[in-house]
C-alpha cells in the first residue's frame, strides 16, 4: 500500500499521466466539438486508428515525422468528411455509419500494413509495423523549467503533441465560446432551426463539427503510434475513441471538464500500469474510471431531478 502511494505521488507518475492521457484528451476535444455541434461522432476510434497507421507508414517512406503527422491527420479528416457526407447528404444514420467506419478502419489498416510490410521486408506482418523504421514526433525539453525539480520532471520532456493537447484545450474553449464560428456551431447543435433562421449555414456547421472532430482524433491517433510508441500495432487504439466520448460526458460537455475527465482516465490507466509492476491486478484499477463515469452519469441525473423537486417544493412553501 505504502509503495502504491509512493507511486501515485511521484513526479514521474504525474508525468506519465500526461503522457497516457494525451491520446484521450485529443480525441475527447474532437468528441466535444461534434457533440456540441449536434453530430455525435462515435467513429473517433476508427479515425484515430487510420491516422495512427497512415502517420507511421508515411513517416517510413518520407523519413519525416511531420509529413507522417500531416498525412495521418489528413486521412482522419477525410474519413470525417466521408462520414459527414453519408450522414448529411445521403441521410445515413450517424451512429450506424460511424460503426461502419470503425469496421472499415480496423480492416483497412491491417490490410494496408500487411501489404506494406510485405513489400518492404519481404514478409507480410498483420500485427503491426514493428519491423519497419518509422519516425517519432519530437520530445521537447523546456529550458529553465526542465531544471526545476518535480515541475521539470512533470512538464518538461513531454512529446510535442502532449503540449499541443493542453494548448488545444484552451484554443477549443476560445473557439467554442468566443469566436463567431464556434458560437454558430453550438447554436446549430442546440437549435438548428434557430441557427438556420438567422442565416447560419447549418449543414456547413455540421460538416465543420465532424471534420474538426476528425482533426483531433487524427492528432490523437498520430500521437499513439508516433509519440507514445514508435510503431503501429493492429487495433492499437483499444477503445480510446470510445473512452474519449465518455470523457466528454464526464466533463459535462465543457472543454475544461473534458480535459479533467480525460486526465482522470489517463491517471487510472497510468496507475494500473504502475500497480501491475507491483502485482496488483491491473483490471481492477482500470475499471475505476469507467465505474466513475457510470456513477457520474447517474449522479448528474439524480442531481438534476433533485433540483427540479426542490424548485417545485420551494413553490409549495411559498403557497
Amino acid at each position: 500500500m505504502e509503495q502504491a502511494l509512493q507511486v501515485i505521488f511521484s513526479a514521474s507518475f504525474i508525468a506519465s499521466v500526461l503522457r497516457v492521457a494525451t491520446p484521450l484528451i485529443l480525441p475527447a476535444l474532437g468528441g466535444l466539438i461534434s457533440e456540441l455541434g449536434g453530430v455525435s461522432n462515435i467513429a473517433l476510434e476508427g479515425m484515430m486508428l487510420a491516422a495512427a497507421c497512415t502517420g507511421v507508414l508515411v513517416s517510413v517512406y518520407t523519413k519525416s515525422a511531420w509529413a507522417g503527422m500531416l498525412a495521418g491527420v489528413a486521412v482522419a479528416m477525410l474519413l470525417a468528411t466521408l462520414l459527414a457526407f453519408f450522414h448529411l447528404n445521403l441521410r445515413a444514420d450517424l451512429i450506424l455509419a460511424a460503426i461502419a467506419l470503425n469496421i472499415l478502419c480496423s480492416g483497412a489498416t491491417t490490410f494496408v500494413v500487411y501489404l506494406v510490410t510485405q513489400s518492404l521486408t519481404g514478409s507480410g506482418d498483420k500485427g503491426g509495423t514493428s519491423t519497419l523504421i518509422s519516425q517519432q514526433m519530437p520530445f521537447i525539453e523546456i529550458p529553465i523549467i526542465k531544471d526545476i525539480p518535480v515541475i521539470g520532471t512533470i512538464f518538461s520532456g513531454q512529446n510535442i503533441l502532449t503540449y499541443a493537447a493542453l494548448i488545444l484545450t484552451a484554443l477549443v474553449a476560445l473557439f467554442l465560446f468566443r469566436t463567431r464560428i464556434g458560437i454558430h456551431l453550438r447554436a446549430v447543435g442546440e437549435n438548428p432551426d434557430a441557427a438556420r433562421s438567422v442565416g447560419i449555414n447549418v449543414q456547413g456547421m455540421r460538416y465543420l463539427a465532424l471534420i474538426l472532430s476528425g482533426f483531433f482524433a487524427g492528432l490523437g491517433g498520430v500521437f499513439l503510434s508516433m509519440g507514445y510508441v514508435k510503431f503501429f500495432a493492429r487495433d492499437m487504439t483499444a477503445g480510446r475513441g470510445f473512452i474519449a466520448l465518455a470523457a466528454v460526458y464526464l466533463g459535462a460537455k465543457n472543454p475544461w471538464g473534458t480535459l479533467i475527465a480525460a486526465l482522470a482516465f489517463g491517471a487510472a490507466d497510468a496507475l494500473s500500469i504502475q500497480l501491475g509492476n507491483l502485482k496488483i491486478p491491473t483490471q481492477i484499477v482500470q475499471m475505476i474510471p469507467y465505474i466513475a463515469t457510470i456513477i457520474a452519469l447517474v449522479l448528474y441525473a439524480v442531481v438534476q431531478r433533485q433540483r427540479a423537486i426542490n424548485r417545485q417544493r420551494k413553490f409549495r412553501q411559498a403557497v
Partner: protein
Amino acid sequence: MAEPLIEMRNITKIYSNGVRADNDVTFEVRPGEIHALVGENGAGKSTLMKILYGMEKPTSGEIMLRGKPVTINTPHEAIALGIGMVHQNFMLVPSFTIAENIVLGSEPLQSGLVNSRKAVEATNALGKQYGLAVDPTAVVDSVPVGMRQRVEILKALYRGAEVLILDEPTAVLTPQETIELFAAIRQLVKAGKTVVFISHKLREVKEISDRVSVMRDAKMVGTVDTADTDEERIARMMVGREVFMNIRKPPTQRGDVMLKVRNLEYATEAGVEALRRVSFNVYANEILGIAGVEGNGQTELVELIAGLRKPQAGTIELANHTIAGHTPREVRQAGCAHIPEDRLTNGVALTSSISENLIVDRYTQEPFTRGGFMNPVAIRDNGDRLIEQYGIRTPDGTLPVGSLSGGNMQKVVVARELSSQPKLLIAAQPTRGVDIGASEFMHEQLIRARNDGVAILLISADLGEVLSLSDRLAVMKDGRITAIFSDVNALTEEEVGLYMLGIKQQTEVEIEQNL
C-alpha cells in the same frame, strides 16, 4: 396611393409531394402599414410568407421589392433585403443569453473575437428605442414566453429589418402581453417599419391592422381596408360560406359528479407556478368549458388529470376514485379519455398502423390480449369497425397513420377516445389547427357524447367555441379559476373576455356556489 413596398406576383408553390400550397397568389404590402394576412390552417399563408423570407422557393411567380424584382433564396438574403420574420415556434437557442440570441449570426467582433459587452449594449439600446424591455444577460430558457417573443422581434430589428413578418404572434401570449405586443407594433410602425401580421383571430386583426388580405384554398381571395369591413365579412371570405356558430344542443339534466378537483397545486420542474388552488366539478351529461388565454395553466391542468404529471397538492377524483398522481393507464382505466392538445405529435404514432393506433389505451384488455398474447384478428376488426363508424377515409386499417390526411388523423384520435366509453372526456383545444368541416365533426361528437352521459371537460382558447358548446363555464387566469358560471346562455363574449383578461373576477364564495 403609396407605391407598394413588397409585391409578390402570381406566386405558385407546388411541393414535391404534389401538394399545391399557393396557387397564383398576388400579395402586396405598402410601406408603413400593418397588413394582416388571414386564412384557415392550410390556406397557404405560412407558405407564402416562407417564400418571402427565403425559406421556400416558389415554383413560379416573382417578388418585387420597392419596384425592383428580387430573388430570395435563403433567410440570409431576406435579412439582407431588410425582411425579418418572427416564427410561431420561437427560433431561439435556449442555453444562450438573450443578448447572444439577438446578435446570433452577426455578432459584434473585437479583434476577431465576439464581444459580449457590445452585444449587451446593443440589446439595451434597441430595447429602449422600440419599447421592448428584455434582460440581455438572462438565459432564454429561464424567461417567460412574452419576453422570448420580444427577443425575436429585437433579433429581426438588430438585423436591420424594415419589414417584420409576425407569424401568429398572439397565440402564445397572455392578454396583457398581447396588449404590450400591440403597443410595440404601433411604435414600430411609427418608427417607419412595416408589419405583416399572420393571424386567424379576427378580433385582433380588426384591432391592429390597416389592411387585411384573406387566403383560402391556396388562393388569394382579396385585400380590403380594415376600416371598411367587419369580422363577419372577413370570416365569410375565409371559409367561402356563412359560419354557423350556433350549435344545436338539446337540453339535458346534469347527472352525478364525475370529476372532482380540489385545491390542486402545481409548479413545473423549472419551479414556475402553474396552478394555484384549482377546484371544480364536472358532472355527467354536461360540458364544462374552461375559457382562458393559452398558457394560464390549462395545459398543466389537463396533464395532471390525465396522469401525465403529478400535483404537489390537492385531490382529483374520477367517479369517486382518487386519481391524482396515478399513472396515465390507471387514470384511463378509471374512465378518463383524453383528446390531447397536440394531436399529431401526442395523439398518434405516424409509422404505426391505424388499427394499432386505435388500441393504445386498451391493448392489454380482452379481446386484444388474451392469455398474454395479442390477437391480430381482434385488433383488425376493431380497426375496421372504428374506421367505418367514424368515417376515417382509408383503404385499409393496416396502413400507417402517416398515410392519412390531417383531418383523418384527428378522426383516429376521436374514434379511439370516444369508443373507450369514458365517464370523463377531456378535450383540449379540440378544433385548433382544424378546418371548418373537421371542427363541425368534432363539435357534433362532443355533443353526442354529452347527450350519452359523458362528463366533458372542454378546454379552448376560442371563446366562441366554449360559449356555444359549454353547459357551464369556468375561466382560468394565471393558474387560478377566477370564475365559474352556471348559466352560459346569459353570458356574452365581452363579459367573459373581461374575466379572461383578469379585469373582473368572482369572489371565492361565488365560485364555491357554482363548483
